[in-house]
């Protein structure tokens, strides 16, 4: 047996999970969607999944709090009789290849069923599952659902890459690939408490002086029970280029965070305004990866920190102005190494019950966590393999209430995908369409976006 300690980010998500479970929102999960031009061989996929589990027994491990040290960690032993589940689905109009295949009205409905559902983290059993969906155009979509405590978007992407390498090897009867040792990298030991306390002062000062207390999410401060829903839109190459041109006009073509966070804020503001609400301030929590850029990169655990971006009502009138306001804050966060400071704050609380520091955040924002969730996870990279032809790949993170909504972006080989993830109790389907359409129009530079 060996263990893998929780990261500071894991502890924050544990608090989020606790709030979600307590309020009828299900488990905190994510879904990764990979679209293939071709069909996937079920037997090879089964072999690949089994090999992935052999390589990563953490995938069925429980996540528990040590009785005496009060530290959370994954307890990794042998995999026993567990297998990673693979379920088969098909669009209802098709005749399925696989006899156990489940007919679905749409892939969106399937994803809705998967979000919020997972093996509880403190129980042994699979923390990920695969769903193979046969589309009417004859291709397959692999939907990979994962417990967010296990990993984050980048980790999920790395795991998908490994699965595809194993699939390719199983399909072509080639030797097992070298999975680059990307697994269970031991956690770096924490710095001394005194050093972390000093480092945490940057973030403490920030919260004391820089964040407004009155923010408003679309679900409001009261946690609401609800079904998880998501809508996505993938731009074609022409639209992606148009969005890139717009990004360059607003200031540089590689600084994604300021521009896309501004798009997300303006889209949310449009929905608030249509409700007759006019929030004066927004706090956008943006995840910042803390994985090293070079060398061995861990898969498991949430390896990120958070920037708390503030936008005021006046900033939202113009996309370029909003982007500049965010850019300035981004530079300050980077200069002050805020991401490290925030991780150190959470680490100071790590032996306390998770609800303690979660209550601190919600108290600070009068019941809210933030105005909405948001991220741009960059280019979704997958290995190049002859036996598979991936046409698109993106994540759909589950969200909590509050705030009830999250607008996420990623790209795959020159196409941008936008995902709106929400709870049905937070916004109506019309509001969801309005929010997504506003973001699309803003990205394309259409005058339809106000």
């Amino acid at each position: 047996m060996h263990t893998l300690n929780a990261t500071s980010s894991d502890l924050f998500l544990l608090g989020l999970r606790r709030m979600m479970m307590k309020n009828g929102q299900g488990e905190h999960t994510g879904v990764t969607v990979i679209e293939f031009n071709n069909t996937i061989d079920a037997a090879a996929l089964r072999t690949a999944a089994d090999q992935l589990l052999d390589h990563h027994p953490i995938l069925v491990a429980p996540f528990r709090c040590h009785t005496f040290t009060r530290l959370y960690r994954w307890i990794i032993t042998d995999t026993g009789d567990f297998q990673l589940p693979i379920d088969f689905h098909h669009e209802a109009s098709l005749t399925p290849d696989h006899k156990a295949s489940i007919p679905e009205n749409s892939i969106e409905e399937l994803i809705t069923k998967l979000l919020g559902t997972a093996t509880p983290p403190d129980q042994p059993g699979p923390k990920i599952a695969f769903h193979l969906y046969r589309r009417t155009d004859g291709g397959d979509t692999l939907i990979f659902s994962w417990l967010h405590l296990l990993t984050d978007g980048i980790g999920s992407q790395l795991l998908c890459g490994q699965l595809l390498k194993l699939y390719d090897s199983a399909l072509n009867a080639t030797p097992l690939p070298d999975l680059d040792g990307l697994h269970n990298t031991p956690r770096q030991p924490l710095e001394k408490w005194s050093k972390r306390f000093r480092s945490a002062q940057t973030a403490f000062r920030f919260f004391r002086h820089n964040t407004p207390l009155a923010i408003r999410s679309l679900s409001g401060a009261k946690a609401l029970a609800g079904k998880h829903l998501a809508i996505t839109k993938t731009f074609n190459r022409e639209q992606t280029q148009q969005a890139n041109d717009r990004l360059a006009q607003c200031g540089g073509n590689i600084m994604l965070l300021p521009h896309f966070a501004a798009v997300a804020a303006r889209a949310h503001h449009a929905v608030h305004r249509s409700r007759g609400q006019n929030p004066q301030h927004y706090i956008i929590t943006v995840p910042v990866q803390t994985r090293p850029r070079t060398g061995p990169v861990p898969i498991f655990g949430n390896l990120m920190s958070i920037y708390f971006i503030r936008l005021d009502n006046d900033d939202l009138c113009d996309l370029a102005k909003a982007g500049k306001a965010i850019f300035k804050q981004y530079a300050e966060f980077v200069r002050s190494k805020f991401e490290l400071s925030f991780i150190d704050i959470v680490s100071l609380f790590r032996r306390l019950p998770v609800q303690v520091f979660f209550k601190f955040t919600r108290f600070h924002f009068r019941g809210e966590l933030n105005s909405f969730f948001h991220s741009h996870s960059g280019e979704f990279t997958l290995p190049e393999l002859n036996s598979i032809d991936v046409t698109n790949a993106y994540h759909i993170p589950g969200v909590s209430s509050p705030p009830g909504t999250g607008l996420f972006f990623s790209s795959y080989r020159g196409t941008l995908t936008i995902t709106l993830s929400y709870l049905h109790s937070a916004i109506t389907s019309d509001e969801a369409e309005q929010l997504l359409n506003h973001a699309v129009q803003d990205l394309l530079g259409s005058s339809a976006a106000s």
Partner: protein
Amino acid sequence: MKPTPENIAKLIAENLLLGTDLNASSPLFELGLDSMAIMQFTVLCEDHFNISLEPGDLTGSNFETPNAIAALLNSREK
């Protein structure tokens, strides 16, 4: 310090792309430079070269190699 390609390569290797061996024409994006690293570079740029970069300066072509970055910084210096 003057923003030469060699100084810039050294700054990036020591602070952003740790452990990589960079020269003036190294393809930085292929070696792992991302938008966060570029933002970190703007801070380093102020501290080491006393040059402030604007959002519009942060383009793919300007950060392709240390040579390209040096050309950008020298144009800002004048």
